[in-house]
């Protein structure tokens, strides 16, 4: 323990070198803006800025990238709350309550909550990271396909009840998301699959971002056009003002959400450690569980502060968590850490069990920079909240075309394919038409994220077990997770059945 603290102190001396400190601040600010763009998240930010890092030594480079990573995780909440467009899959859950809060004129409250919860999540996870790296790395290592599938079932289970009142439309939405996630390529059989109308653009599958920006960006904007009747000079947000007094009141109110925030932090961290899972399932599960443990679950989806805190704490905690398998095992826990891993190769560092020993200065510099990046990111975000609110007060007819443009570019940037931009416009228009008929669309967006994780894990497991489903129940980690998932899945169904039975008119 003492030894760890000593190493950490060394790390801090590296971080507080003026150049590195400047890199952290620049990285956080840049990351915040990249994250706030619809379509660009931490993955793009880190991938795109990777070549810039050859200007500085490896430790400085990784500190810069870690700061971008953190900044982008904070920034993701900004577009989720202000525009209702999740900039990355990790911020989907934040839209569920962040957007309603903004619509109620409480965007500042939601943004403050997101910043503070992110800070708590980041801080808790970085402490866990500092002191419990090796044993947790072992768990990550033995976590195989059956465990991954069980975890995905658990993620789905925590999300039952997210859909609308119409069971058929909810079911339809989940299934269309899962089917779209299967488009492209089947790795198990090695065959192209579901190349719709034989268009080659479908070979790379349907990107989550295309669906999310289509539905939440373009679809939502068309919806707003209708609501506002083009709006004249009106803005999307009428009341919110930011004053110091109001901010303090916001912070005080946040105290009541501490349970959701802390739960989200721990959950996010542990899910983040697991390879392949990453921050998205972590934040979704945190939201689902926050709803279950909340005193006012009926508030969720209508603007519950806990519904912002839990996923935001979780996605930041998970982004720290996913660094762990990357550094200790050389396995990325998320797409972003996969890029960081590539960066480490460029800098001549070999991630893996020996990294902590061979390059301890690098590792502890990175860990210390996580503490610092976390602090600077929250400060920068809090400072910028009034600016964001001001942007929201721009008349809708000015803001709308700008958002449309950001959506179009956001759809193009990740894959640089016009096919995706067209697909996004189609999703936007069809999504709008479906939403008018009360089709719930959030389940489709979740399904397209979880589908590509769940399906291969299911089939790999069955391949290993010769098609026996018992593999999900007999393994030491998979068993308990799966049983929990099944209990959670059937609880609401039983409850609904029971309620119906009780309330049946005699």
């Amino acid at each position, binding site marked *: 323990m003492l030894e760890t603290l000593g190493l950490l102190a060394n790390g801090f001396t590296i971080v507080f070198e003026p150049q590195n400190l400047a890199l952290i601040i620049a990285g956080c600010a840049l990351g915040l803006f990249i994250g706030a763009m619809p379509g660009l998240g931490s993955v793009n930010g880190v991938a795109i800025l990777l070549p810039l890092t050859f200007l500085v030594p490896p430790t400085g480079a990784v500190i810069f990238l870690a700061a971008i990573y953190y900044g982008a995780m904070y920034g993701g909440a900004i577009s989720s709350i202000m525009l209702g467009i999740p900039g990355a899959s990790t911020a989907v859950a934040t839209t569920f309550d962040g957007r309603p809060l903004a619509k109620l004129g409480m965007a500042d409250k939601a943004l403050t909550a997101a910043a503070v919860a992110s800070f708590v999540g980041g801080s808790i996870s970085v402490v866990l990271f500092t002191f419990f790296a090796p044993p947790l790395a072992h768990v990550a290592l033995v976590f195989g396909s059956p465990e991954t599938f069980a975890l995905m079932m658990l993620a789905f289970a925590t999300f039952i009840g997210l859909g609308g009142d119409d069971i058929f439309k909810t079911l339809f939405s989940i299934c269309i998301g899962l089917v779209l996630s299967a488009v492209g390529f089947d790795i198990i059989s090695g065959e192209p699959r579901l190349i719709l109308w034989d268009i080659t653009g479908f070979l790379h599958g349907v990107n989550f971002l295309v669906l999310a920006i289509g539905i939440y960006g373009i679809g939502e904007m068309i919806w707003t056009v209708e609501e506002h009747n083009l709006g004249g000079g009106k803005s999307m947000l009428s009341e919110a003002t930011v004053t110091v007094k109001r901010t303090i009141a916001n912070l005080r109110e946040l105290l009541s959400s501490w349970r959701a925030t802390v739960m989200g932090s721990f959950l996010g961290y542990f899910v983040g450690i697991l390879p392949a899972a990453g921050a998205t399932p972590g934040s979704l599960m945190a939201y689902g569980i926050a709803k279950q443990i909340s005193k006012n679950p009926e508030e969720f989806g209508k603007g519950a502060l806990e519904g912002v805190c839990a996923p935001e704490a979780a996605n930041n905690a998970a982004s720290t968590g996913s660094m762990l398998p990357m550094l200790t095992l050389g396995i990325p826990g998320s797409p972003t850490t996969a890029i960081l891993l590539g960066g480490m190769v460029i800098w001549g560092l070999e991630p893996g069990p020996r990294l902590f020993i061979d390059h301890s200065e690098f590792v502890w510099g990175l860990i210390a920079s996580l503490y610092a990046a976390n602090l600077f990111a929250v400060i920068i975000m809090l400072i910028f909240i009034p600016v964001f609110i001001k942007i929201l007060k721009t008349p809708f007819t000015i803001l*709308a075309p700008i958002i449309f443009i950001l959506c179009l570019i956001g759809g193009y940037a990740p894959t640089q394919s016009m096919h995706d931009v067209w697909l996004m416009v189609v999703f936007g228009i069809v999504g709008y038409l479906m939403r008018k008929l009360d089709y719930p669309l959030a389940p489709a967006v979740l399904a397209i994220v979880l589908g590509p994780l769940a399906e291969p894990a299911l089939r790999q497991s069955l391949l290993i077990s010769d098609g026996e489903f018992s593999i999900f129940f007999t393994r030491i980690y998979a068993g308990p997770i799966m049983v929990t998932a099944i209990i959670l899945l059937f609880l609401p169904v039983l409850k609904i059945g029971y309620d119906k039975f009780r309330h049946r008119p005699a």
Partner: protein
Amino acid sequence: MSVRTAELLMALTMGAFSIYLMYKSAELPIGWIDGEGPGGGAWPFWLATIMLVSCVGILFNWFRRHGPIANSEKAYIESRVLMDIGAVALSLIVTVGLFSFIGIYGALPLFLIFYLRFLGKHSWRLTTTLAIGIPVLIFYFFEVTLKIILPKGITEPLFIPLYKIFF
């Protein structure tokens, strides 16, 4: 068109789409392969089947007039907003179509002028400022800072001197 009619049309369209997805999935084996588990097409095929069943369920509710949507005779999209939404959706489609021909920096100013001036009724001064300013900002942020090269179409030669300056 009433909401009730729209509900019927949507369910029929989505049902047809589900059948198409089932047909496409069936290009790979959809059954159980001994010792391997489900075939490559099984996951999407059976999920598409559930989609189809859901559509049938929605149609069933429609016929027995169950739920608010199936009973609503209100206009699906009110005529007073239909023009607005049509204009927005069409301008988007045209803009994306123009990306490949006159490039993003040709299409975006046109879109901004159309939206700000003709839909938003803003002053020419504001319109031109934004129609020029936003593409310039986009160029700086995406191309110069992030090195994401956006489509240029026939305007490509105009950018070659710019590349020389910025890269």
